[in-house]
Structures are given as structure tokens and as C-alpha cells.
């Protein structure tokens, strides 16, 4: 128990330490975000002193960009589930490695949501009135109390899932399924519920006909499942770029050791392996002897290349001593996908499947490697324990393939079509029937009584959405360049449509028919920017911790080494190391 606690604290300390390690671009980025955060904090301090009068809100339009951003971000958080569903329900392998990035994005988005509702409160000092037990939570009558519960619940669920999976990866331990799979499925339902509940906040208000429409819930989900995965597509490419270390050309300079003959392996080598890989101990002597056929031990120097991406061979490898790093080329840049330490395997996927090498393996320090032909590996894997560990470790890697991005593309594609369709349904109902209830929609799309504040916004949003939909539907978006354009357009379009375009016109005209425009004030805008900066800061820190863990750089095995140097080195952004 004490050891477990100590290990966990060490893990947390190391994660915290690594957040402060990076190159000048990392510091510049984090510094800039901190400055914007502080500007936002300063603006919020002014708001606390003078009240919400420093915003553009009034008794007529009593919610503004704070709640608009909140609504948008709940959608982003909910959309993380769109990566989880293909992985856990349809067993999609491509997306498996990426789920954690979606969930970390959800955590950052929920943090932003909570910040946005807090700054919207007139009396944030009384937040404790909301806490069940010591306060007075109006549950289940008030939808806002539901929202408080589901948002905090979702935050906890995702923190648990990400935290547990990352900690297991750090410890090189297989996660216990019962300890996270049930939570994954709860989180799937929960994600739908957070966005539905947020929609119901609006839908439940009979006095606001613009919101009091059952289509708001489905529209929220459709737009969330468009903007969320679109944001993840962009975020993953950024992660891929900043974690890439060096160009393909530079990697070619290493000595090729893939054809080195080495010495024949002996039972002593298997014994040495079993000391690093306890599962090996289950393999019988007879099986070990059978597996010796074709097995050899090779000694390599730092920089030697053990296998190359794109080639084919039937060998799999285990590290006996030293350290081997596996790098994959994606988009002309190499990125560490895995770090193999004594007891670890590499090259097993293509050996077992007979496919081309997915990545290049390079010795990072003088190493001794056990090289097995696929037949020997299969012999070892006849033992259940070995089979399980080899399979479990196959997924221990960090890969962001183009294919996984295009799976997300198909989600964005379908969601955008549904989103635009639901928008058309809504516009038809508001305008064709011609009832006085259409006044808000009229204000939004055409302007009312000489007030046109939202008209240019909503038409730009619709323009963006339509262009994005066309790009997404055409084969054009099979190129990442165009897909990115479509993603940016969808995110901006939906941010306007769902934030400004849904929250503000609900108040205009007022229930007594007054038409009053709303424009966010500078102070209000600064607070918003501050919260977005806070969210990005959190997400960057989460990635800064998660990436090295997924790459095997930050692991229990190298506990006690100085962070960011030697075998814990994970330059961030990694491209910096390419400079000679």
C-alpha cells in the first residue's frame, strides 16, 4: 500500500516536472498562453469588483458569450465519445491509440465549461449553495442542477479513464478491464447526456419560443459530432507535427544492422529474457529449445538500424540489454512510437502478419538484441502467458496514421450533413408558418425593427457550414489539406451558429417584445480569451505528459533519471532535435 502510494506520487511528480521541460518554442507557446490567461484573470477581477455591468449583457439579453462558449464546449467535450465508440464498440484498431487524445480534449473542454459558467455567475462566492449536502441543490427539477451533476461526473469519468490508462502504460502494466471498461461505457452514455441536458436547459423554457423546440437537442448533438471530431482531426495533426523528431533523410545515416548475422542464441539468452520478461518463465524448456531454431543474438552500437520501415522480413526482436527506439515516418517526419527496453519486443507485428515494417527501429545506446524468426515467436506464443503479453504490448505505441484521421473524416462528413439538414428543418418551420413565434429567427437571419447585429454572423456561419459540407462530401477532402480547411470552417461555423446564433436570439425580442441588441464588451471578450487560453494551456500540459508516456519515454523503468535528458528525452516540440 505504501509502495503503491509512493509510486503514484512519484508518477504525479514526474508528470508535473515534465510539464516544465521543453525547447524555446514550447516555452514561447506556454508563456504566450499564460499571458493571455493573466489578461483574462485581470478582466475577471474587474468584473468581480464592478459586477456583470462590465459585460455587454443586460436584463434584456441576460446571457451572452460566456454561455455561448459554454454551450459550444460542452459539445466538444461530448464529441470525444465519437472516438471511443468506434474503438470499444466496433473494435477499431486504428483509432485505439488516439482515444486518449480525445478524452484529454474532453477534460480540457470541461475545465473550460466550468470556468465559463463560473464567470457568468453574479455571486461566484456562493458556489457552495450548489453543492448537495451543504447547499440546496434543486434536483431533479432544475435542468441547471442536472448540468452541474453531469458535467462534473463527466470530468471525473474522463480523468479516471485517462489517468488510469496512462498510469498503467507508465508502469508497463496491463490495465485491469473491470477497472476501466465499465467506465468507458458509462462515459459513452454520459457524453450524450451532457449535451442533451445542456440542450434541455434551453428547450425547457416555454417563454422562449426560439429555444422551446424539440429539434434543439438533436441539432446540438449533430453540431457537436461535427465540430468535436473536426477539432480532434486538427489537434492530432498538431500533436503529430510537434512530436515528430527529425526528417527521413537524416535517419538514413545510421549503420544498417538488419542483416548482421550475430551469434546463435542459447538457452542462457532465453533465461536472461525471462529475467526481464517474467511471462517467459512459463515457457517450458522443450518449447524454448524448439524456439532456438533460427534465433540469434546481435550486439549493436548506438545509432544502428535494426529494421527499416517499408521493408519485409520475418524477424521479431526482444531487447536483452540497452534501449531501442521505434520511429515511424508520417508525412516526411519521424516520430517515436515506442521505446523498447530490456524485456520489450519490437518488429513483432509485421513478423506475425507478414506485412511490411510499419516503422524503423534504431538502437539508442549499445544494445544486445535477441532476434527470432516468426516461427520461434509463434512457438513461444503457444504458452498462454506469452501470447497475452506479446499481444498486449503490440498496442503500446503512439501512432497517428492518416487512416485514423480519415475515419474521423467520415464522422464529420455524416454529422455535417445531418447538421445542415436539421438547420433547414428549423428555418423552414420558423419562416413558412409565419407565426409571431418566428420573431427571434427573423431577428437572427434577417434583422428585426432595424436591428441587424447577428445577421452577418449567421450568414457567414451558414456559408462556412455549406462550404465545409461540400468539401467533406467531395473526394477532395481525402487530401489532408482540404480536410483541414473543411474542419476549420465547420468549427468556426458551428461556434457562431450554436453559440451566438442560438443563445443570443433566444432573448431577442424579449418576452415583452422589446428588441435590444447585444455586443460583448472588451472586458467580456478578454475573459473569454483568458478561458480559451486556460483550456489550451491545460490541453498542452496534458499532451506534454501523455505523449512521452505513450512513447515509452516516461516510464517507471527510468524513474530517478533527470527529466528531459538521456532516455527520458522527449524534446517538445520534438522537431527541434533535428538541428545538427
Amino acid at each position, binding site marked *: 500500500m505504501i509502495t503503491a502510494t509512493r509510486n503514484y506520487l512519484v508518477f504525479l511528480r514526474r508528470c508535473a516536472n515534465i510539464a516544465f521541460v521543453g525547447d524555446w518554442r514550447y516555452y514561447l507557446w506556454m508563456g504566450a498562453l*499564460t499571458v493571455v490567461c*493573466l489578461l483574462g*484573470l*485581470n478582466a475577471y477581477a474587474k468584473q*468581480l*469588483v*464592478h*459586477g*456583470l*455591468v462590465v459585460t455587454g*449583457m*443586460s*436584463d434584456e439579453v*441576460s446571457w451572452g458569450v460566456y454561455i455561448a462558449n459554454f454551450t459550444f464546449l460542452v459539445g466538444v467535450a461530448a464529441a470525444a465519445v465519437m472516438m471511443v465508440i468506434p474503438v470499444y464498440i466496433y473494435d477499431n484498431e486504428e483509432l485505439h491509440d488516439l482515444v486518449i487524445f480525445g478524452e484529454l480534449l474532453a477534460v480540457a473542454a470541461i475545465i473550460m465549461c466550468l470556468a465559463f*459558467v463560473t464567470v457568468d*455567475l*453574479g*455571486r*461566484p462566492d*456562493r*458556489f457552495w*449553495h*450548489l453543492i448537495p449536502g451543504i*447547499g*440546496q*441543490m*434543486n434536483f431533479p*427539477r*432544475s435542468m*441547471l*442542477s442536472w448540468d*452541474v451533476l453531469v458535467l462534473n461526473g463527466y470530468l471525473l469519468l474522463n480523468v479516471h479513464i485517462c489517468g488510469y490508462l496512462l498510469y498503467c502504460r507508465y508502469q508497463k502494466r496491463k490495465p485491469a478491464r473491470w477497472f476501466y471498461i465499465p467506465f468507458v461505457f458509462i462515459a459513452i452514455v454520459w457524453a450524450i447526456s451532457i449535451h442533451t441536458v445542456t440542450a434541455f436547459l434551453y428547450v425547457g423554457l*416555454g*417563454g*422562449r419560443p426560439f429555444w422551446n423546440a424539440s429539434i434543439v437537442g438533436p441539432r446540438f448533438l449533430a453540431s457537436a459530432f461535427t465540430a468535436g471530431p473536426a477539432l480532434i482531426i486538427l489537434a492530432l495533426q498538431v500533436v503529430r507535427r510537434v512530436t515528430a*523528431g*527529425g526528417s527521413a533523410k*537524416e*535517419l538514413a*545515416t545510421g549503420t544498417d544492422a538488419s542483416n548482421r548475422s550475430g551469434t546463435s542464441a542459447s538457452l542462457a539468452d532465453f533465461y536472461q529474457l525471462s529475467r526481464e520478461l517474467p511471462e517467459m518463465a512459463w515457457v517450458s524448456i522443450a518449447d524454448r529449445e524448439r524456439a532456438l531454431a533460427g534465433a540469434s543474438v546481435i550486439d549493436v552500437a548506438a*545509432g544502428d538500424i535494426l529494421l527499416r520501415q517499408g521493408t519485409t522480413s520475418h524477424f521479431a526482436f526482444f531487447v536483452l540489454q540497452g534501449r531501442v527506439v521505434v520511429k515511424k515516418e508520417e508525412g516526411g517526419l519521424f516520430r517515436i512510437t515506442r521505446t523498447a527496453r530490456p524485456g520489450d519486443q519490437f518488429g513483432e507485428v509485421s513478423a506475425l502478419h507478414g506485412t511490411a515494417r510499419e516503422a524503423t527501429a*534504431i538502437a*539508442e*545506446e549499445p544494445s544486445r538484441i535477441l532476434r527470432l524468426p516468426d516461427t520461434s515467436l509463434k512457438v513461444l506464443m503457444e504458452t498462454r502467458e506469452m501470447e497475452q503479453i506479446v499481444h498486449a504490448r503490440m498496442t503500446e505505441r503512439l501512432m497517428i496514421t492518416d487512416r485514423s484521421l480519415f475515419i474521423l473524416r467520415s464522422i464529420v462528413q455524416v454529422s455535417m450533413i445531418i447538421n445542415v439538414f436539421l438547420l433547414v428543418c428549423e428555418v423552414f418551420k420558423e419562416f413558412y408558418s409565419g407565426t*409571431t413565434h418566428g420573431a427571434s429567427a427573423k431577428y437572427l437571419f434577417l434583422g428585426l425593427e432595424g436591428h441587424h447585429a447577428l445577421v452577418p454572423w449567421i450568414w457567414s456561419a451558414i456559408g462556412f457550414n455549406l462550404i465545409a459540407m461540400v468539401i467533406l462530401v467531395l473526394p477532395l477532402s481525402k487530401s489532408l489539406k482540404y480536410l483541414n480547411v473543411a474542419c476549420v470552417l465547420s468549427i468556426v461555423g458551428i461556434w457562431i451558429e450554436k453559440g451566438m446564433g442560438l443563445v443570443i436570439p433566444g*432573448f431577442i*425580442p*424579449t*418576452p*415583452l*417584445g*422589446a428588441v435590444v441588441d447585444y455586443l460583448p464588451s472588451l472586458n467580456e471578450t478578454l475573459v473569454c480569451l483568458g478561458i480559451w487560453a486556460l483550456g489550451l494551456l491545460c490541453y498542452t500540459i496534458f499532451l506534454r505528459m501523455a505523449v512521452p508516456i505513450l512513447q515509452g519515454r516516461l516510464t517507471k523503468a527510468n524513474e530517478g533519471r*533527470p527529466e528531459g*535528458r*538521456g*532516455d527520458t*528525452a*522527449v524534446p517538445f516540440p520534438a522537431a527541434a*532535435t*533535428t538541428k545538427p
Partner: protein
Amino acid sequence: MPLPEPTASVPETGSKNLDRRSFLRSTAAFAGLTALATSLSPLRELGDYTSTEQFLQKYYKELTPQEMKQVLERITNEVEHQYGIRPHVRDLKPMDGVEFVYALNLTRCIGCRKCVHACVAENNQSRSPEIQYIRVLKMPHGSMDVEKGDHTYDDKEVPDKGFFYMPVQCQQCKNPPCVKVCPVNATWQEKDGITVIDYDWCIGCRYCEAACPYWARRFNFTKPEIPADRLNPEMAYLGNRPRKQGVMEKCHFCIQRTRVGKYPACLEVCPVGARKFGNILDPESEISYILRTKRIFIQLKEEMGTNPRFFYYFDK
């Protein structure tokens, strides 16, 4: 080589290097703390935002009579400190067998807005920014559609020909949407039908303001200002005691008057007798008589299902 340096080749950290690093680190920490302090500096003006007593105050319905006494004492002292007048603050409870109902005669109302101003004076509403519970709509003859109403009419003389006037205030609904949505139960309906707000419990989320179909709720976007010589010292906890920045308020049928048997201020000031108020549970009351005998009376936005206790009627 693009590879990260192996451990062996990491240069040993000399003491000089260490000094430089720790110097940089402490400089960065100092700069960060200074920036943080600077960004928070506006908080120095926070003043009497909340006292410990007020911060820890319990929910209205959970206060024991003894605790209520202390709370009233605190409020009295606070008001005296701020305005130099010692007010008479009471916690008035609803009377048994009473349910208040309001009726407004649209034929008589001339749109003079005297009710608006009487309400502001009686209920210690902020003069800057202006907060008013009653909004009078100038409506063209022949329509009850509020969207045709003029909120800001500024005629030299009222009534204007071709128009009628419709004052709107809290409708004291039997099925109030504002109460349902409040996440902390800071607003509720009392036994006598008045929907009240605990100004010391409201968190200022403004969900009730969004939920109200009558635009009856007002938010204190900043610290309310009331000239000390205009302060009404006769106060009720759930009524007209001065509010704080960041909380909601609204018409409460002048709880400090009606619960001790007086008429609301808006009714007393009305020069044409357009306003009627009373106990609907008493069959002999004037309000019961009006609702029994008038052929047409209107609940505003009846289709909302809010069932207001505020009725509009016509003479002919």
C-alpha cells in the same frame, strides 16, 4: 543524428550551470508571481463584497428563529452603516387563509407610470443603474400582442389617442417557471401565492430571468445606488431590503406592506383606480367580486400554462 542524446553523453551539470539554472528558475517564479499579483490587483477595490457572516449564512428555510434574529440584526447594521439610517427590518410570514391576487383594469389605465415610480421608491430599487419592476407598454387599439407594444413612449400627455396602456410586472404565477429552474432553490412560492427571492442565497446565474415569460425579473448587474434620503426604512427580509450586487430581484406584491394588511404601493398611487388587489380566498373581497362578475379577464400568455395571479380586465 536526430536521436536524443544517450545518457552517457549528457554533460555533467557543473555548479556554475546549476547556479545559472536556479537563478533563471527563481527569476521566472518571481516574474510569474508579480504578473499574477498585478492581474489580481483590481480585487483591492472589492470592499464590502461579502462578510464572513453573510458568506456562511444558511438557507432561509433552514434558519431557526434565533438565527433569523441575528441575520436581521446584521442587515440592520449593514443598512445603517451604509445609509446612516437605522431601518426596521422584519421577516414577515404569510398569513393563514390568504392568497393574494391582482387585477388591472385596462380600460382605466392611462399610462402615467406613477405606479412605476411609486414601486421604485417603496421597494428601494437602484436608481443607478435604474431598476424597475413594472414596465408599461403603450399598445395600439385592437391587439394584445406585446410585440406591438412601445416600451419607451415619451408623450407629453397621456393617454394618447388610439392606444391603450398595459403595465406588466411579476404575474405571481401559480406554476412559476422561474422557481422550477433555479438550481439552488433561492426563489420559491410562498403560501400566500407570492414568489419571493432569498437575496442572500441567489448565486446570480440568471436562469430564472431567461425562464420568465413576462420579463419580470431584474438583475443587479452592479452595486445598486439608492440616495440615503430616499431610503424606505420599513423593510422585509424577502421584500424591499437593499439588494447586493450580482443577485436577482423582482416584484413581490410589496410584501412589507401587504403582509401587514396594506395595499401595494402601485395600487395606492394609481390616480384612476385601475389597480385592484386582495385575498381571493375571501369571497367577500373586492378582488373576488371582480373576478366573479367580469365577463372577460385575461391572464397574459395564458397558453404558457403559468396560471398567473395577475389578471387584466376591461370595463366595457
